[in-house]
């Protein structure tokens, strides 16, 4: 019996002869914040694309015993797999509350869709609180700050009952405190869900990763705990490089 939230085996993605992802195996479990790192162009986003139905691949993705390969994007989403994008996309014309309400409603019956919303579902209210946007319920999403949009995006996955979340650089452009807030948010979310995060911010990874998989040139280069991975010389060579120097700077200026 398979207890993983998501099991990917042998994922391979080809673009006109160029192999962006090459036989990747990956499992995600509930309760963990799983970091996916690797050099630019390693295939992280492409892997997420494949799992969510945006890129054609060979191999297999199984969730709750169901094979997802070949399914349409919206079917996969309804199976509880949610994702965010490297650049946040929310419905700019709609308010925060409307954004969340829509995200909560993929399973609604046509009949309820055709009626007016009486009150916000409890779940929406709760998530709004959780992502710190309770005060912005009636703000059009288009005028939210960058980071707020990213939180909203995560919120949209939460209300949609996704239990596998794939987040592509969710803290890009965030300041220190926002990063910490986001990190704590991710851990709270992960209590009942599986969360995968693609990130290049090593401080963030060190602070919040439960497990790390490193991709390189489309393949899994290393996997394990933060320390295991960070001390792997191959990872240092292709990815971390002078990262230690980096720490010195941080220490100096703190």
């Amino acid at each position: 019996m398979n207890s993983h939230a998501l099991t990917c085996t042998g994922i391979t993605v080809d673009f006109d002869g160029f192999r962006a992802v090459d036989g990747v195996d990956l499992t995600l479990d509930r309760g963990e914040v799983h970091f996916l790192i690797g050099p630019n162009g390693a295939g992280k986003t492409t892997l997420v694309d494949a799992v969510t139905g945006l890129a054609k691949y060979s191999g297999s993705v199984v969730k709750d015993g169901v094979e997802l390969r070949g399914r349409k994007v919206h079917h996969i989403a309804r199976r509880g797999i949610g994702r965010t994008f490297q650049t946040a996309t929310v419905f700019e014309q709609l308010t925060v509350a409307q954004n969340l309400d829509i995200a909560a409603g993929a399973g609604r019956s046509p009949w309820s869709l055709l009626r007016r919303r009486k009150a916000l579902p409890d779940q929406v209210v709760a998530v709004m609180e959780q992502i710190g946007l309770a005060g912005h319920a009636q703000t059009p999403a288009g005028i939210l700050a960058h980071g707020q949009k990213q939180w909203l995006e995560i919120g949209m996955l939460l209300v949609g009952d996704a239990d596998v979340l794939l987040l592509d650089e969710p803290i890009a452009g965030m300041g220190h405190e926002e990063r910490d807030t986001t990190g704590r948010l991710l851990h709270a979310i992960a209590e009942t869900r599986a969360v995968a995060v693609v990130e290049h911010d090593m401080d963030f990874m060190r602070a919040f990763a439960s497990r790390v998989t490193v991709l390189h040139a489309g393949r899994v280069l290393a996997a394990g705990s933060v320390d295991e991975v960070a001390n792997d010389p191959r990872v240092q060579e292709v990815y971390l490089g002078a990262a230690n120097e980096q720490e010195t700077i941080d220490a100096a200026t703190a």
Partner: protein
Amino acid sequence: MDLLVGQLFTGLSTGSILLLAALGLSLTFGQMGVINMAHGEFIMAGCYTAYVVQQAVGDAGLSLLIALPVGFLVGGAMGLVLEWLLIRHLYHRPLDTLLVTFGVGLVLQQVARDVFGAPAVNVTVPQFLRGGVDLLGTAVPKTRLFILALAVVAVAVVALVLRFTAAGRRIRAVVGNRDLAETAGISSRAVDAGTFFIGSGLAGVAGVALTLIGSTSPTTGQSYLVDAFLVVVAGGMGRIKGAVVAAVALGTFQAVFETYSTASLAKVGVFVVIVVFLQLRPQGLFTLRTRSLA
């Protein structure tokens, strides 16, 4: 047999006419996203340019050679004015350009009516383009061969410029991302205006050429417009290669279908074929993909 050869050539010829009418659109519509419904009227302006030049010059052959560049300038100038007055305010509202330019088209038709009168005028075909040449036993009109050659030349020039020159890169850059192009030191205003000038100028050239086979009247441009748009759509927006293939395919389909059915049904057939075709290649024959959402 004769008829079949004739029809195959007709397909090619119809395709080349469509292509000539659509080439400018593949710049202004395909590249810039402007749905210029006045493109037909720019073609019409090209027709009247040929007429006016002929009135002034007299000799039909000489006037055709003069009218081709002049038609380019006339169409281009009209495009420039349109771009400056209206289009530049509408780049972020492509669907609105359709409605505005439809209005412009109406006005231009009426202007033509008031200036040249409602009845068609005659542009005499030069002596050296009269009659036909024998091709495998069929008489192929020289005028159509001329248009075919002109289309080939025009397409080649446009494609090479876009692909390999600095100007072509600039056009593609501005089309792709206006703000970013500005910050790369490219004047998007100048490039927009220039692109629109060329696209509209090509309509003028098409107009001059089309006087050889069609009528010159205020409504002339309308006959070509919808088909020209379809060519650009079926070919894949902004893809010259696609436009060529689509134009020839549609022309041939129409000519062959018409032989066994009626001209009207052929038009309907073309539409059905395109819808079916878009099931297979929703973004047209040749497309460029990006990874962005929206």
